[in-house]
């Protein structure tokens, strides 16, 4: 089943099948080294600039800022949810995340 995935409204959302599913302005918890050297890093996502799928995992490219050390950077292929039986199931931003290495599958640690 084809999934329609796109960023919307100047990068404010990830839209999945024409439904606004993942919003900017949440604080995501990322493991060390994914974004900066903080452990864990609490990263405010300020805008999405790309999205895609890796298997059943929906990933997003975003710009963000670490709330502890202030690093401002982009992050590629952040897992933001999964497609289960054709439906999108979002990950909570609080769970500790790593990014997806192409071909390696998604890493979600909690």
């Amino acid at each position: 089943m084809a999934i329609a995935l796109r960023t919307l409204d100047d990068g404010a959302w990830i839209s999945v099948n024409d439904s606004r599913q993942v919003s900017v302005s949440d604080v995501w918890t990322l493991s060390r080294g994914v974004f900066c050297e903080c452990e864990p890093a609490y990263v405010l996502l300020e805008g999405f600039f790309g999205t895609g799928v890796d298997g059943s995992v929906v990933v997003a490219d975003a710009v963000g800022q670490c709330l502890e050390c202030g690093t401002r950077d982009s992050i590629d292929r952040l897992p933001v949810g999964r497609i289960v039986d054709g439906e999108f199931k979002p990950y909570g931003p609080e769970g500790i995340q790593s990014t997806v290495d192409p071909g390696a599958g998604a890493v979600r640690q909690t």
Partner: protein
Amino acid sequence: MPSDVEEWKEELYGTDIRAEMERFAEEGWEAIPDDEHDAWFERFKWYGLYHQRAGQESYFMMRIGPPGGVLEPGQFRRIVEIADEYSRGPTDNPVFGNGWLDVTTRQAIQLHWIRIEDVPDIWDELEEVGLSTVQACGDSWRNIVGCPVAGKDKHEHVDADWLATELHDTYKENEAHSNLPRKWKVSVTGCDEGCGQGDINDLAFEPAEKEVDGETVTGYNVRVGGGLSRNEPRFARDIDVFATPERAVDVAGGISALFRDNGDRDNRYNARIKFLVDEWGPEKLRETLQEEYVDFELHTAGEDLRDSYSYNAGEADGKHDHVGVHEQVDGDYYVGLNVLVGRIGVDEGYELADAAEEHGSGEVRLTQRQNIIFTDVPEENLEDLRSEPVLEHYSPDPHPLQRGSIACTGTEFCSLSIVETKNRQVRYARWLVDNVELPEGVEDFHIHLSGCTASCAQPQIADVSLRGMKTRKDGEPVEALDIGLGGGLGEDPQFASWVGERVPADEVPGAIANLLENFAAARNDESQSFREFVADRDDDELAELIEPEETDYEDPFMHNTKRTWYPYAEDDDMDASPAPAKADGTPLPSDD
């Protein structure tokens, strides 16, 4: 590869959208196919309709854009009537009630909680008085901004109202210019004070004069590629072109067509013309304009008036806005009224419309500082106008800390915003007025609060710039603001330096109070303006002057307001949202 948005626009855009919107209105919200929401909502923007954020599905923001912010007699009242009838939400805002209109920083009006089912009736009511929502949003010519007192102002050099109106009439609903790579913001300044804010627009016409064939001709110099959004602020670049008012219309069309053909349609984040100017430089842009987009010889730039610009110029004296009573060129007066954060409740809107008609011509103009102006008030009416009860709140002589406050829409309705803005800025302004003593001689002090880097409140050109952020406080993520200092326009415009990062929102009023106290203690003398004071110091010194701290200011919006369906609802949880809803407000089931 063209973006989805480009594909949707290629399929259907411009005036063809209207019939489809009218069909959806007739059949109701549910007639918009679920799997075409993204495409339709993108197209609706061209007609000034913007789908509100998650939790508010089926409700829209509607934008009405009068060129130069000029609302002719009767038009302001009509907008108030429309707000009264159609702009009502499922629950109240604790500060503003239910039913209001927002004056924007681009001299437009925004209404919220609009239903697609009501849109054709609203269009009819607007068009009856000569107003429109066409191209208020979307990838095309947006509302043309300019001197809000054009045609009336003693400082006028060239009639900006004529050009703004001519550009509006020529390029709105013009098929050749209706589908651009991105938004297209145009400004026309006609006065020697610089109040059109041309430096932050995609295309700016600025007053100038030039000797042509032995005669001194009045017209405009042209600048291109200004804008504030996405952490990539640019001032418009001088492309060394002078145009008479008549030629300015052709030059504008040529640059718009150049942008249409050369802007980046593959990457929306690189699409604004500011990035094309970065890539090409002003010289190549001028050459391409001359060779491919106009059929007459362009003049080189004339002598401009920038050294006299006083609007938001950061000087201790000079006119920084249009608030107050000012004599017009014809001997009547215009009266600028302060609208705190730009929001006017419908009941007060009627009172303002009455006052404008009784004491002036009934014309109401909108400024880029979210304020309104009554024009054509005879001198003998000034006292009666001043004594109108509604002017106690919408004052021509407000406290400087209220006068200087601007706020964007924020998480109340906006998808991009990171923090709540309008109610917070009202609370900030009230607390500051009650608790802060302004340093001697400070009559203008601009504090702009923008919820994100889109910069709709134009934070980079304020004395104190506030931009939405998050931080962690007591182990929890809370709403916060970055603090910038020393921005402004004038002859040498300056973006604010971001010297305070991730300050918890409840510590910002304390930070501003401490900053002003430190400024008063450390400035050279009373003639030194705040902007001059900032310019004399490096970022580290400035950062030490902020000193964020908790005070008795209380902030009810520290939680993640974006995760609510409406930040002020008694039960604000997303699951409690009444949206989407039928036209009568009955909730519909949805997984959106």
